[in-house]
C-alpha cells in the first residue's frame, strides 16, 4: 500500500487526542484508511440510548473526494436505507476537502437528531415519517432498542 498522506496521519492523531463526545473512530489495525466508528444516539431523539456501529473508508483521492460512510447497525431513519447507506449532502455534492472525518461524523450525528423525510433514501420510512410521525418515531425507538442496545 502506498504511504499514507500527511493529512490522514495528522487527522487520525488529532481524532485520537481530542475525541468528540458521543463519537468514537478507530483506524483498523491492518488498514489505516478504514475506521471502525461508534456513534451514540443523540439525547431527545428516538435513537437515544442506542450505540450505532458504522464503517468509514477514506478513498484514494481523499480529501478531494468524500469519505465513504455506512451504518452497520440497523436503524429506522428516513435518510438511511436498509444497507446502511446515508443520504447526506456533505457526503456528496456539498463535500469540501476542508471537511474532516470529525465534521462528517458530527453531521451524521446531527442527522439522527433531525431526520429529513423530504429528501428520503428509505422511501417507506420517509412516507410514514410524513403521514404519521408518531408511529415512525415509535418504530425508530423500537429498532433502537432491538438492534442498537447491548444487553
Amino acid at each position, binding site marked *: 500500500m502506498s504511504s499514507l498522506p500527511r493529512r490522514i496521519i495528522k487527522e487520525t492523531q488529532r481524532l485520537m487526542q481530542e475525541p468528540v463526545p458521543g463519537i468514537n473512530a478507530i483506524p483498523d489495525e491492518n488498514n489505516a484508511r478504514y475506521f471502525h466508528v461508534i456513534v451514540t444516539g443523540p439525547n431527545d431523539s428516538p435513537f437515544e440510548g442506542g450505540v450505532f456501529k458504522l464503517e468509514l473508508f477514506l478513498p484514494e483521492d481523499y480529501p478531494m473526494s468524500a469519505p465513504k460512510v455506512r451504518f452497520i447497525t440497523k436503524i429506522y431513519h428516513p435518510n438511511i436505507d436498509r444497507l446502511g447507506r446515508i443520504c447526506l449532502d456533505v457526503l456528496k455534492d456539498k463535500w*469540501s*476537502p476542508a471537511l474532516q472525518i470529525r465534521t462528517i461524523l458530527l453531521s451524521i450525528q446531527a442527522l439522527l437528531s433531525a431526520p429529513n423525510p423530504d429528501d428520503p433514501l428509505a422511501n417507506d420510512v420517509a412516507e410514514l415519517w410524513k403521514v404519521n410521525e408518531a408511529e415512525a418515531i415509535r418504530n425508530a425507538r423500537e429498532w433502537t432498542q432491538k438492534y442498537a442496545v447491548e444487553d
Partner: protein
Amino acid sequence: MDSDNEFLDNVDSGNVSSGDEGDEDFGMDVDPASSTERQLDTEEYQYKVLTTDEIVQHQREIIDEVNVVLKLSTPTTRILLNHFKWDKEKLFEKYFDGNPEEFFKCAHVINPFSKGTEAVRQKTTRNHPEECEICFSLLPPDSMTGLECGHRFCLTCWREYLTTKILTEGLGQTISCAAHGCDILVDDVTVTKLVPDTRVKVKYQQLITNSFVECNQLLRWCPSVDCTYAIKVNYAESRLVRCKCGHVFCFACGENWHEPVQCRWLKKWIKKCDDDSETSNWIAANTKECPKCSVTIEKDGGCNHMVCKNQNCKYDFCWVCLGSWEPHGSSWYNCNRYDEDEAKAARDAQEKLRSSLARYLHYYNRYMNHMQSMKFENKLYASVKQKMEEMQQHNMSWIEVQFLKKAVDILCQCRQTLMYTYVFAYYLKKNNQSMIFEDNQKDLESATEMLSEYLERDITSENLADIKQKVQDKYRYCEKRRTVLLDHVHEGYEKDWWDYTE
C-alpha cells in the same frame, strides 16, 4: 457564411410562394451547394456558423461590451454573465435595479466595492506561517492563496482540488471555493493560474465554452456527430439553419428540420415513439390477465374456453367473463347474464384503447415508412450518379444532366416533409382546414411516389435523351405540391385554424 444566399441560384421561377416561411429546406446531409431551397422570403433568417475560436472571441466581445458600462474585472464579469445566462440586458437590469450586495451574492461573487474585502487583504499580508486546512501542512504565506472570500489553502491543494473538479466532476464556470459551505465561484483567470497542466486547462476551456453555448439562447451547437461548430442567431426561433458541416436542423429544438410540424409536437411525438407507452397500450388492448395467476394472455383463436399455459396454473376460464369455465359447459351457464353495465364499461374501455392504438399506428407507420424510404434514396443518389455519367457520354454536358440529381434532392425533401406531416396530423383535430390539409398531403404523397417510381424504374439507357422534360415536369409538380401544403399549414398557424387533440 452569413446566410443561405449562395443557394439562391437554384430557385425555379415557377414556384412563387406568398408565405413568410419561404426558406424551408429538407435536405438530409447532402452536398449543401446542390440542395434546392426556396429563398423567396423578403425577410431572411440571419445566422452565422461559428468555429470554437470564434465562440471564444464572441464571448470576449460580450464581456467587453458589459465592462464598458460596469468597469469590473474581466473574470468577475464573466461569472456575472454566466449567472445571467449571457443575457447582458438582464444583467444590466438587475445591476441598476437594486441592491448591489444581493446582486453579487446571487451570482456567488464577493462584491468588489464592499469594505470587507479590504480586511481580507490585510489579514493575508501577515508574515507567520499558516496551516493549510486541506493537507494540514504549515506553510509560509506565499505558498497559500485564496479568493476574495478569504479562505486560504496551499497552492498544491488548490491545484489538486481544481483538477479533480475539472477532470472528474466536469465542472467549469461553477467550481466554488474549496472551503465548506462557501459558494464563492473560482474565476477563470485564477483557475488558469493555479493549474499548470495543459491537458486540464484545455478541458477547462472546453467546459466553459460549452456552458457559454448551452446557456446562451442565441447559440446552439450543431447536433451532428463530431461537429464542433455552433450556430449564432439574432433572435431565437424555429427556423432552418445549415451548419458548415452540411447538417440542416431546426435552430429552436436542434432536431432535423421538421416543417410543417412545430417543435413542441415533434418533441411529444419522439418521446411517444421512444418510450414504450404504446407497447403497454397494445398489451392493454389485446390481452387479458389470467384471473388466477395474472399471467398476460393474448387470445389467438376463436374459442373462448381458455386454458392458462402457465404450467403451474393451467386454470380453465372463459375469455368473455373471465369466470371459471366449469359452469359454462353445464346447465347453469350464466356467462351471458353478467352485469350488463360492468361488461359494457369494460368493453368500451378496451374498444377505446384499441382505436387509439390503431390511430397511432396509422400515423406511425406512415411516418416510419417515409423515414425508411428516405434512407433508401441514398442508394438512388448512387444509381443516378451513374446514369448522369452515361448521359454525359451521350453528348450531354455536365450542366445539362444536373436535373437528375436535383430530382433526387427534391424527392428527399418531399419525403422529409411528408414524414413530418404525419406527426402534425397525429395531433390535429378534425375540422374543415384539416381536411384540406389531408388532401394536400394526399396530393404530395402521390406525386412523390410517382417521382420516386419514375426515378427508380423508368430511366433506362435507351431513353436517356428524352427523359429530361419528363423528370423536370414531375419534380416541379412535387415541389409545387409541397409548397402548397406548407403554405397552407403556415397560413393556418397565422390564422389559428389548427386545433390539437392534446
